[in-house]
């Protein structure tokens, strides 16, 4: 390295040595990534392609054993069946409402708490740790506890409602489609699963917004304060623009995850009381009806919807709006 200009004689061997080092890096890089590629390829990429093929087959679960590639066919019947089936559009609407409200709610809660915990105070570390509990709690434990809390016979919520809030009868939160409160219909079970998801997912938004807040340059804010900006003005004109990027990314991720969420809804309501989202329908087609074709078709439709969303986000990023 040091004698680069002067050493002219041994150019050939050195350049060969450089190339072999390069080649070695190339080889090692590929070797080291290979195990991961194999696993991810086998469990994600291949199935992802397979779901498109399966959606074009007229196939039941019983047919799998004797299935051979020669039986492959192409039919759009599954899509026609799925799109015209009873309750599909209702489920699509429920999914959208669920994903949208959950996204807004968990981002809002995360943002408010990140701002509230921004300045240090005694016990902030402990508070932050406790706020992360819903995120860490195993989902089955969380849904079991929530179901017990909301139980009509001995749940704390109904007991409090009847004892202190003057409810005339216990509410079966997880199966009730809707009740009228002061003439306004309220979707009970759907609200519960949305609240649960906001509760479960706000800590992640909180963490990411907190991390981003720490990187906001201090002098920007101080300058605004010197100019006489009030806290809300500082937030609106200084912090929010800085947080826009991370908020947009979180919104995208949260929407995608909520849109495809099966476990939480299934464990809480099983899809009852107007909470049947498309993911629950996929499970029902697959397990209850044992129809691989329609389950795959539903999956493909979900994937296309999410892909469209992703393209939209990337275009926004490219235009520099986020």
């Amino acid at each position: 390295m040091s004698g680069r200009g002067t050493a002219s004689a041994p150019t050939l061997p050195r350049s060969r040595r450089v190339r072999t080092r390069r080649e070695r890096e190339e080889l090692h890089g590929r070797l080291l990534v290979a195990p991961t590629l194999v696993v991810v390829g086998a469990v994600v990429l291949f199935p992802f392609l397979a779901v498109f093929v399966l959606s074009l087959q007229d196939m039941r679960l019983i047919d799998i054993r004797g299935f051979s590639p020669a039986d492959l066919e192409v039919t759009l019947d599954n899509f026609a069946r799925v799109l015209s089936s009873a309750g599909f559009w209702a489920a699509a609407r429920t999914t959208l409402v669920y994903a949208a409200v959950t996204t807004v709610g968990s981002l809002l809660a995360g943002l408010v708490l990140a701002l509230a915990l921004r300045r240090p105070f005694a016990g902030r570390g402990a508070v932050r740790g406790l706020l992360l509990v819903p995120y860490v709690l195993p989902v089955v434990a969380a849904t079991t506890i929530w179901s017990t809390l909301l139980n009509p016979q001995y749940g704390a919520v109904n007991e409090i409602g009847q004892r202190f809030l003057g409810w005339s009868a216990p509410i079966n939160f997880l199966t009730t489609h809707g009740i009228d409160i002061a003439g306004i219909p309220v979707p009970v079970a759907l609200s519960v699963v949305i609240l649960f998801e906001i509760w479960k997912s706000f800590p992640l938004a909180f963490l990411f917004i907190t991390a981003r807040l720490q990187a906001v340059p201090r002098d920007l804010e101080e300058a605004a304060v010197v100019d006489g900006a009030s806290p809300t003005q500082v937030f609106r004109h200084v912090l929010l623009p800085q947080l826009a990027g991370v908020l947009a990314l979180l919104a995208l991720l949260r929407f995608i995850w909520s849109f495809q969420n099966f476990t939480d809804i299934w464990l809480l309501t099983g899809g009852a009381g107007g909470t049947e989202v498309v993911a629950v329908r996929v499970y029902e087609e697959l397990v209850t009806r044992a129809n691989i074709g329609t389950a795959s078709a539903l999956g493909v439709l979900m994937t296309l919807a999410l892909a469209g969303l992703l393209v939209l986000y990337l275009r926004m990023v490219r235009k520099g709006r986020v």
Partner: protein
Amino acid sequence: MADRHAAAGARGRPGELDASAGRRGHRSGTRRRPLDRHTLEVGILGVLRIAVIAAAVAASAGPLLYGAVLSVRPFGDVVADPLALPALGEVDLSAYARAMADEAAGGFGLARFMRTSVTVAVWTTVLAVACSVLGAYAAVRLRFFGRDTVNGFFLAVYLFPGIVLAVPLFVLFSRIGLTGSLVGLVIIYMAQTIPVSLYMLRGYFQAVPAGVEEAAEVDGCNRVQVITRVVLPMALPGVAATGLYVFMIAWNEFLFALLFLVDDRQRWTVSLGIARLADFAVPAPVLMAGSIAITVPVVAGFLLAQRLLVSGLTAGAEKG
């Protein structure tokens, strides 16, 4: 992480006070206004802040506490008075014993579910971390063809809907006879956790100075030795945090356990076990005891490694 934040806050606060004092000085000609927008907002937000924090802590930790209290009360008491707290002498731990005991002994088999889950989660952790260590090292230190493609590909994995993948995986595994096998679960959990652990490890590996590795290479270490003897020890806290993260995901997973193991009670994982018990008429204290029992290990682990986990997960957020 908290220290840095605290330092920044300490710097910010006096500055802010000075600034408002200075501003008041500027305006002194226009007479003192006792309730200008700034003071009003600071006051209101100050009160709101405390209320919000208190409510959030209650909402976050409250359900867990509720479950813990319920788990030590006899079921009859719970039905008679759902809101009462048991006196210290009345604490009844029999629900835990009943949840843990094997079915043959009149219990619900939670101890066995836990053994299964530990096996699955430990294997997943070991294999996923091993794969990600190699992959993350390559991504950080080596230039090779398709590196960026590979990185983007792993990110994309993160966005594929789990329920959509469940359909072909269920078909595939039925076909090759892996339904009902824990091996299949381990492989799926690996694929699900590798993208995030790669991402986390990459952040920790970047903190290892490249010079140290080069020195080791000069001393005659080959690539594997550089990784195991130099990079791993230096990034050990990060590797531990990543391992804990993978363990948590594998321990908590429900959908694939439901799809593949539901017919085989002997092999239920903890998540599946608790969820199935909830469908039967199992007394609430036993269910709560089970929920607390499967929660304690993960929450304790998370709180212990909180700092590392949080900094690993949010590493990218600071860049915006």
